[in-house]
C-alpha cells in the first residue's frame, strides 16, 4: 500500500512540477526565441497536457487499489440511496478507522523537509485522496483547454510591434510595444504549478505557500497589460485584498502551530505514526470533537487522548481558540474566493486577458478558497460553519444583484462567479460537504466554458466587451453561441428532470437540498435557504439576460456586427470539449461517478450529522435525502421563473428594462456602484492607511528627529555657554592679574630715569634709609 501511495505521489509530482520546468524555460523565451515564435506556448500546452495525462494515470492507479464495490455500496442506484447510508465508518477513509474498507484510499507522505525544530517539523508533503485526484484532473483538463484557447486568443501578441489601443501616451498616440506571447504562457505555467501544488499539499503550511504563489501569479496575469494603469491597479488590489485574507490565514496558522504543533492534515507514514495529523488530533475517528467545557482534547489518532510526554496530562486546546483558528483560515478562503466582505477585487481582476479570467478567476484559483474550506472542514466548529454559511449567503445574493445591472460581458461572468462561489461556501457551511465540492467541479467546467465563449465574442468583436453594443451574434458565431447556451443552462440549473439535466442542475440541487434540510432543523436560520432559492432565480435571469443580449435580437452596432466572425478551431475546439464536460460531467447526479468519488473523501461524521453541537443541528445524509426532491423542484421552478423573466425582458421584449431602471433609479444606481463597497473601503482602509503613514513620517520628522536636533542644538548651546564662561570668567581673571602686574610695572617705570647721578643718589639715600630703618626697628 505504501508503494502505491509513493507511486501516486510521483505521478502527481510530475504533473505538478512539469509546468514549473516549463516556466523556467518559457520565461526566457525572449532570449532563445523571437517574438514571433510559438514554441514557448506549445511548451506550456505540452506541460499541462502531460500533467493531465499523469494525473489520469495516477487516477487509474488509484482506481486499481480502490475497492469500487465499497464505493458502490454507499452510492447505489436510486437517487436517495446514497443518503440512506449514514454509517460514518463507511465514509471515513481516513487512517485510523479500520472499518472503512480494507483498502486504504488516501495517502500521505513527504517530499522534502524544510526545517525541524525539536518536535516541530515543516515540510513539503503530499496528501492524496479522491478529492485531490478529482481536483488534479479538473485543473489540468480545464487548464489544457484554456491553454489551447489562449494559443489563438493571445495571437495578436505575436508581433514585434503590438499596438495597445487602451493606452494613451502623453503625446496622444497609442502605445507601441513588442508582443509578449511567450511571457503570457510562462505566467500560465507558473500558475498551473502553483495551483497543482496547492491541491497536492499535505499540510496547511504548504497550502499557504502555494496560496501565496497563486496569488502572485494572479497578480502577474491581471497586470499582464502592465502599461494600462487600470490593469496594474487591479492587480495590486487583488493581491493586497488577498493579503488581508491571508492575514487571517496566518493567525489561523499560528494558533494551529502553537496548540497542535503540526501542520499535517493526516499522518499515515508508518515511520512517524506516533505523531498524528491535525485532523486526527482535533476529531475522533467518527468525527466528534472531544470537548469538555471550554477545552477540546486532542486525539492521538489511535482512539486515545494525546498526552504530554513530560507530565502525562492530556493536551487540550481552548474551544474559542479552535473557533478563532477556523475563522482565521476561513478568512484566507474569503480573500481568495472573493467572498463578502473581500469580494471587490474579483470584478477588477477582469482587466487580465480573458483566458486568465477563465482559468484563474473562475475555474481554479478562486475555487481554491472553497477547496481549502472543504479540506479543512474537520477543524471547523459549528460556529465557524455558521459563519461560513452566512458569508456565502450574503455573497451569493450581493454578487447576483450586481450582475443584473452589469453590462460588461466579463463583469457579469465575474459577479456570477462570486455568486456561485457563495453557493459553494454556503453548502460547506451547512455541512453539505460533497454538494459544495461537487458544485466546485461542475462550476469550473461551465464557468471556464462561458469565459472562453465570452473571450471568443470579445475577439470576434475586436475587443469590445460592452454587451450594449452586441446583439444578434448567433448567426455569425454559431459554435460560440451554442456552447455558451450550454453553459448558461448549466449554471441556471435548468433541466427536464428524468430526461436530461446538465451538471449545474445536479450540483445546485444538492446544495439546495442540504440548505433546505438545514433550514428544517434550524428554523431560525431560514435566510440560509430562502436567499439562495431566490438567487437561483436571479442567476437564471442574469445569465439568460447575458445570452439574449449578446446573441439574440438585432445587432445594436451595425458596424461592429459586420466585422464579427467565428474563430478558428484552436479556439472553438476547447469550447466544445468544455461544453461536453459542462453538460455531462455530473451525469447521474448523486449516484453518478463524480459525486461518488467526492463522497469518498468526505470527512467522517458528516453523514451522520454528528458533528453538530452548540445548538446548531447539522443535517444528516438521510435528512438531506428526504428533502432532495422537494428542494430540487422548488429550485427548478424558481430558475424557470428567472429564465422567463429574462426572456420577457430581453428575448421577446414585452417588458422594457429601461422602465424598470427609471422606476427604481436609486436601487439601480446603488447596484451599478457595486453596493458602494469600493468607496467604503477606500474611506475605511485605504485613506486611513495613507494618513497613518503620513503620521509615521511626521513622528519621525517632528518628534524623533526634532528631539535629536533639539538635543544636538542643546549640546551646541551648552558648548557655547562653556566657551563664554572660559572667555569671560577664567580668561578674564588671568588677564586681569596680568594687567595689574603690568600696570604696576609701568608705574615703576618713572623711577628708571637713566640718569647716573640720580641712581647714585638713590643708592646713597637708600643705604641711609636702610640704616635708619635698622636703627628704628632693631635698635640693638
Amino acid at each position, binding site marked *: 500500500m505504501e508503494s502505491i501511495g509513493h507511486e501516486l505521489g510521483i505521478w502527481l509530482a510530475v504533473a505538478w512540477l512539469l509546468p514549473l520546468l516549463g516556466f523556467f524555460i518559457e520565461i526566457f523565451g525572449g532570449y532563445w526565441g523571437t517574438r514571433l515564435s510559438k514554441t514557448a506556448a506549445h511548451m506550456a500546452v505540452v506541460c499541462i497536457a502531460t500533467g493531465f495525462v499523469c494525473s489520469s494515470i495516477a487516477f487509474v492507479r488509484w482506481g486499481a487499489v480502490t475497492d469500487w464495490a465499497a464505493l458502490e455500496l454507499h452510492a447505489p442506484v436510486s437517487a436517495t440511496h446514497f443518503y440512506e447510508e449514514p454509517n460514518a465508518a463507511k465514509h471515513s477513509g481516513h487512517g485510523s478507522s479500520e472499518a472503512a474498507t480494507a483498502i486504504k484510499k488516501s495517502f500521505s507522505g513527504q517530499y522534502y523537509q524544510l526545517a525541524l525544530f525539536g518536535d516541530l517539523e515543516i515540510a513539503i508533503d503530499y496528501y492524496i485522496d479522491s478529492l485531490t485526484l478529482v481536483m488534479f484532473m479538473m485543473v489540468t483538463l480545464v487548464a489544457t483547454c484554456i491553454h489551447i484557447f489562449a494559443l489563438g486568443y493571445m495571437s495578436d501578441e505575436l508581433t514585434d510591434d503590438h499596438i495597445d489601443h487602451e493606452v494613451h501616451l502623453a503625446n496622444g498616440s497609442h502605445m507601441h510595444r513588442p508582443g509578449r506571447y511567450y511571457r503570457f504562457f510562462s505566467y500560465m505555467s507558473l500558475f498551473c504549478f502553483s495551483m497543482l501544488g496547492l491541491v497536492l499539499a499535505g499540510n496547511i503550511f504548504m497550502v499557504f505557500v502555494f496560496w501565496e504563489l497563486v496569488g502572485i501569479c494572479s497578480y502577474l496575469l491581471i497586470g499582464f497589460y502592465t502599461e494600462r494603469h487600470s490593469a496594474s491597479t487591479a492587480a495590486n488590489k487583488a493581491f493586497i485584498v488577498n493579503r488581508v485574507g491571508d492575514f487571517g490565514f496566518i493567525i489561523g496558522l499560528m494558533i494551529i502551530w502553537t496548540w497542535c504543533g503540526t501542520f499535517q492534515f493526516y499522518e499515515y507514514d508508518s515511520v512517524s505514526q506516533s505523531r498524528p495529523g491535525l485532523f486526527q488530533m482535533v476529531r475522533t475517528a467518527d468525527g466528534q470533537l472531544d470537548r469538555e467545557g471550554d477545552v477540546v482534547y486532542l486525539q492521538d489518532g489511535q482512539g486515545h487522548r494525546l498526552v504530554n510526554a513530560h507530565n502525562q496530562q492530556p493536551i487540550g486546546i481552548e474551544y474559542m481558540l479552535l473557533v478563532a483558528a477556523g475563522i482565521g483560515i476561513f478568512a484566507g478562503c474569503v480573500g481568495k474566493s472573493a467572498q463578502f466582505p473581500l469580494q471587490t477585487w474579483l470584478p477588477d481582476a477582469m482587466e487580465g486577458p480573458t483566458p486568465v479570467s477563465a482559468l484563474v478567476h473562475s475555474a481554479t484559483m478562486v475555487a481554491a478558497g472553497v477547496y481549502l474550506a472543504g479540506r479543512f472542514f474537520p477543524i471547523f466548529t459549528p460556529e465557524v460553519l455558521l459563519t461560513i454559511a452566512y458569508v456565502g449567503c450574503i455573497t451569493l445574493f450581493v454578487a447576483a444583484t450586481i450582475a443584473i445591472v452589469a453590462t460588461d460581458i466579463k463583469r457579469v461572468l465575474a459577479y456570477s462567479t462570486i455568486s456561485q462561489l457563495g453557493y459553494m461556501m454556503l453548502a460547506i457551511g451547512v455541512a453539505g460537504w460533497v454538494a459544495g465540492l461537487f458544485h466546485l467541479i461542475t462550476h469550473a467546467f461551465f464557468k471556464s466554458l462561458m469565459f472562453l465563449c465570452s473571450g471568443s465574442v470579445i475577439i470576434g468583436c475586436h475587443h469590445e466587451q460592452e454587451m450594449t453594443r452586441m446583439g444578434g451574434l448567433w448567426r455569425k458565431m454559431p459554435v460560440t453561441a451554442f456552447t455558451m447556451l450550454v453553459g448558461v443552462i448549466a449554471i441556471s440549473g435548468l433541466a427536464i428532470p428524468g430526461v436530461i439535466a446538465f451538471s449545474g442542475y445536479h450540483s445546485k440541487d444538492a446544495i439546495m437540498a442540504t440548505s433546505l434540510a438545514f433550514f428544517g432543523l434550524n428554523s431560525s436560520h431560514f435566510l440560509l435557504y430562502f436567499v439562495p432559492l431566490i438567487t437561483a432565480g436571479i442567476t437564471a435571469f442574469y445569465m439568460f439576460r447575458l445570452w439574449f443580449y449578446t446573441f439574440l435580437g438585432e445587432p445594436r452596432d451595425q458596424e461592429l456586427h459586420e466585422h464579427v466572425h467565428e474563430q478558428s478551431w484552436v479556439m472553438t475546439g476547447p469550447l466544445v470539449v468544455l461544453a461536453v464536460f459542462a453538460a455531462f460531467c455530473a451525469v447521474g447526479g448523486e449516484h453518478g461517478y463524480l459525486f461518488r468519488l467526492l463522497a469518498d473523501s468526505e470527512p467522517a461524521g458528516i453523514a451522520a450529522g454528528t458533528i453538530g453541537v452548540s445548538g446548531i443541528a447539522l443535517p444528516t445524509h438521510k435528512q438531506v435525502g428526504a428533502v432532495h426532491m422537494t428542494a430540487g423542484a422548488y429550485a427548478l421552478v424558481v430558475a424557470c421563473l428567472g429564465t422567463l423573466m429574462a426572456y420577457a425582458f430581453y428575448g421577446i421584449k414585452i417588458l422594457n428594462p429601461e422602465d424598470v431602471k427609471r422606476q427604481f433609479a436609486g436601487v439601480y444606481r446603488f447596484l451599478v456602484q457595486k453596493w458602494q463597497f469600493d468607496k467604503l473601503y477606500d474611506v475605511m482602509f485605504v485613506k486611513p492607511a495613507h494618513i497613518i503613514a503620513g503620521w509615521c513620517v511626521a513622528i519621525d520628522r517632528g518628534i524623533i528627529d526634532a528631539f535629536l536636533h533639539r538635543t544636538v542644538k542643546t549640546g551646541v548651546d551648552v558648548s557655547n555657554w562653556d566657551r563664554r564662561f572660559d572667555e569671560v570668567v577664567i580668561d578674564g581673571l588671568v588677564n586681569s592679574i596680568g594687567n595689574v602686574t603690568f600696570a604696576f610695572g609701568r608705574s*615703576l*617705570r*618713572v*623711577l*628708571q*630715569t*637713566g*640718569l*647716573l*647721578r640720580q641712581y*647714585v*643718589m638713590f643708592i*646713597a639715600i637708600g643705604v641711609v634709609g636702610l640704616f635708619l630703618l635698622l636703627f628704628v626697628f632693631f635698635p640693638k
Partner: protein
Amino acid sequence: MGEIGLKPYLLVGAVLFVTGIVCMASKRNGIGVLMGVELVLNGANVNFVAFSRYTALGLDGQIISLFVIVLAAAEAAVALAIALNFYNNHLTIDVDRGNELRG
C-alpha cells in the same frame, strides 16, 4: 703722643666717603664721577685699614683694602674705556646726556 684711636680714622673715612658720594652725585663730567668713585673706595679702604689695626679683624682688613685698590685700578681702566666710548658716541662726557637706559 699717644694712640690716635679709631674714631679719627673713621671720621676721615666718612669724610672721604661723603665727599666721594657728593662728587658722584653732583659732577656731570664722567671723569669727575670716576674720581668720586675713587674717593668712595678709598674712604672704605681707610675704614678697613683702621678696623684691621684696632679690632680683631687682623690682617684681613689690609688684604681686602689691597684687593680694593687692585679692583679700583681695574675698574678705572674699564670705566675709562667706557668713557672713551661714551665720548665717541655722544661727543661729550656729560653723563646726563647718556640716558638711553631710561625706562
